[in-house]
């Protein structure tokens, strides 16, 4: 950042009272059309204005020929879709109208040779003098669900959630939002930093640190200009809330690609890794792992310790999960005697009587919610991974689509199975809320049969249905590492 940008500038960017699309176009293939379209059709509640050199109506908005024709003090944000050459005059006009933030989509800056670099420096200098925050240029836009604002050139527009996204690559923002949409976890704010002329990924993450709409920052970076300053800032943010980073250019091959993409400097990846651990930043090894970690921070309470119980109706998955826990910083908690005795009251003797708590098909109507509740309430258990959700509804699906339905009692049993999976998912979320402990539900049905009432209900409770037990364990491990980092540094 190059001038004192405060939270009010970010408010203007993410929660503007009104928005101007500069360079609105009637051609549906142009950015100036798409930006206006997405703002209007995703339900932005504030005033929307548009400029066009020739005037006329676009998508029902009467455009004005000059920014000077916009009323004073009603718009806070301008989405700039005009050519680079027009933008300095535009910003001056915006400042005169009280606009405090600009998302510049225009290319032709540092992405376009030495002349472009100079143009970008000039853009930043002029904007700083005018007191306007510039995001971009050469970025694909921003999303802010609390304001129903979709000021971007691409899909999707995700549901409202608690993940704040920032990225050095626009399509990684879209990719994370695609997962947020598919899983129902949702997003608070999202922005592609573009050329990051004035505001970088670190600036956005810092804002998310103070943003009550955001519970976790999630970022894709390829390199940082000043690693030490980045580290100091991320350490401050991570004290307030989790930050998840996935870094491109971790290998020599990736570093060459990053150098040509964003000009990122190569640094020893192990140094970056150590800096993240020291700062309490969650570094994910892959895109999916980054999303899983962020989705967990956004939807689960932090574990207070590593002691994990696996509650399962699927024996094999229980074993695989025990392996995954053994390979992690988590601990497969020894089953406390009093908990075993309490569960003995609920199940016949063929259940596993150890952790993983495998029901072994002995469960009846109320067993799963009861076992989840007893386990979560136990002081020696810090977290639960719950497996086997949706199995009943999966069978119900076969019954429903078979030729005997609804006769032979099938209608009744199908309804029962589906009701049970719904109950189980609701119980997992409610028990987590009551105990303040994470309860992670994992099932491949989340991906294989997303309409199954099990995963559907997990989403409805605002939780994330992990696509595999291993991914749930990895995400829980990231949560525990973050919690442990805080604990060790508080004493």
């Amino acid at each position, binding site marked *: 950042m190059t001038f004192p940008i405060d939270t009010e500038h970010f408010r203007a960017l993410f929660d503007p009272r009104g928005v101007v699309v500069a360079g609105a176009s009637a051609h549906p293939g142009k950015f100036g059309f798409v930006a206006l379209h997405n703002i209007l059709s995703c339900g932005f509640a504030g005033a929307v204005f548009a400029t066009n050199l020739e005037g006329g109506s676009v998508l029902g908005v009467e455009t004005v020929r000059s920014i000077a024709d916009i009323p004073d003090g009603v718009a806070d944000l301008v989405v700039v879709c005009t050519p680079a050459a027009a933008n300095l005059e535009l910003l001056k006009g915006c400042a005169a109208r009280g606009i405090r933030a600009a998302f510049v989509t225009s290319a032709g800056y540092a992405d376009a040779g030495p002349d472009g670099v100079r143009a970008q420096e000039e853009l930043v200098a002029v904007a700083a003098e005018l007191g306007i925050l510039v995001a971009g240029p050469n970025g694909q836009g921003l999303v802010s669900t609390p304001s129903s604002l979709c000021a971007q050139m691409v899909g999707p527009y995700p549901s409202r959630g608690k993940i704040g996204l920032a990225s050095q690559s626009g399509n990684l923002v879209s990719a994370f939002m695609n997962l947020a949409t598919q899983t129902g976890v949702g997003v608070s704010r999202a922005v592609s930093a573009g050329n990051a002329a004035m505001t970088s990924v670190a600036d956005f993450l810092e804002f998310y640190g103070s943003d009550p709409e955001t519970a976790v920052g999630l970022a894709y970076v390829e*390199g940082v200009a000043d690693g030490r300053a980045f*580290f100091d800032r991320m350490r401050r943010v991570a004290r307030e809330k989790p930050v998840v980073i996935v870094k491109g250019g971790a290998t020599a091959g990736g570093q060459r690609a990053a150098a040509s993409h964003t000009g990122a*400097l190569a640094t020893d990846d192990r140094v970056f890794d150590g800096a993240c651990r020291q700062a309490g930043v969650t570094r994910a090894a892959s895109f999916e792992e980054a999303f899983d970690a962020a989705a967990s921070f956004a939807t689960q309470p932090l574990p207070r310790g590593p002691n994990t119980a696996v509650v399962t109706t699927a024996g094999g998955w229980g074993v695989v999960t025990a392996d995954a826990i053994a390979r992690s910083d988590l601990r497969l908690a020894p089953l406390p005697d009093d908990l075993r005795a309490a569960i003995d009251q609920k199940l016949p003797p063929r259940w596993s009587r150890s952790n993983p708590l495998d029901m072994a098909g002995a469960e009846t109507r109320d067993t799963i919610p009861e076992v989840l509740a007893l386990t979560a309430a136990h002081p020696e258990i810090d977290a639960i991974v719950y497996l086997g959700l949706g199995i009943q509804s999966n069978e119900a699906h076969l019954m429903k689509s078979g030729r005997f339905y609804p006769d032979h009692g099938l209608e009744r049993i199908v309804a029962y199975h589906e009701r049970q999976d719904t109950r189980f998912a609701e119980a997992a979320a409610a028990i987590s809320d009551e105990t303040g402990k994470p309860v992670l539900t994992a099932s491949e049905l989340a991906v294989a049969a997303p309409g199954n009432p099990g995963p559907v209900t997990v989403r409805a409770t605002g939780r994330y249905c992990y696509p595999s037990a291993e991914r749930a364990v990895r995400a829980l491990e990231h949560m525990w590492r973050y919690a442990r980092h805080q604990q060790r*540094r508080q004493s």
Partner: protein
Amino acid sequence: MAGAFSTLSEADSKALVAAHGIPVPREHLASTPADAARAADELGYPVVVKLCGDAIAHKTERGLVRLGITSAADVESAASELLAAASPEDGDVQVLVAPMLRGTRELIAGLNHDPQFGMTVMLGIGGILAESIADVTFRLVPIDRVDAEEMIDDLAAQTLLGPFRGEPAVDRERVMDVLVGLSRAAEADPSIVSVDLNPLIVVDGVPIAVDALVEVALVEVQR
């Protein structure tokens, strides 16, 4: 970073890190073969004799380290050979006489300057396979004891740190002393460009820097 670097002699390097609590062997500098033999008698055998000077960085490659010497006569002849092997570029030289420490396990630790992150503390598994194993971890200066303990946890070869081949477990507190000491050295002396403690031999669980090389900037470096 700008400016020219120079290296400190092994003895000066060890004095620098020892001042920050890093264990080094009890050892003596000798200017003559006879002094070297007297030093060895005092230390007890076996001993190591090494050529020592400000400009000598790659002792082993140049054959300037003699290990496992068991008598005063052998110390004298080794010291003579080493002093004679010095070239004019080596400048003023002496021999360093040190007890021959034995331990199955070796660690490496040091300070390095990263172009983006500045000064870093490093810890790794040492020994002849160290480079190919590449079991190392970094933190940014300054670190505290919690960071140091987490660095130890980062190493993949945790079984090497436990009781091993009849030797006791590596004393993690002493490893933390080394790492925090390195961090303090970097903070106390901004002219330090790098420190290489290679190896730290683990003797009765305690890591001891049997070799040390400190690089310093001749003019204040920009960080």
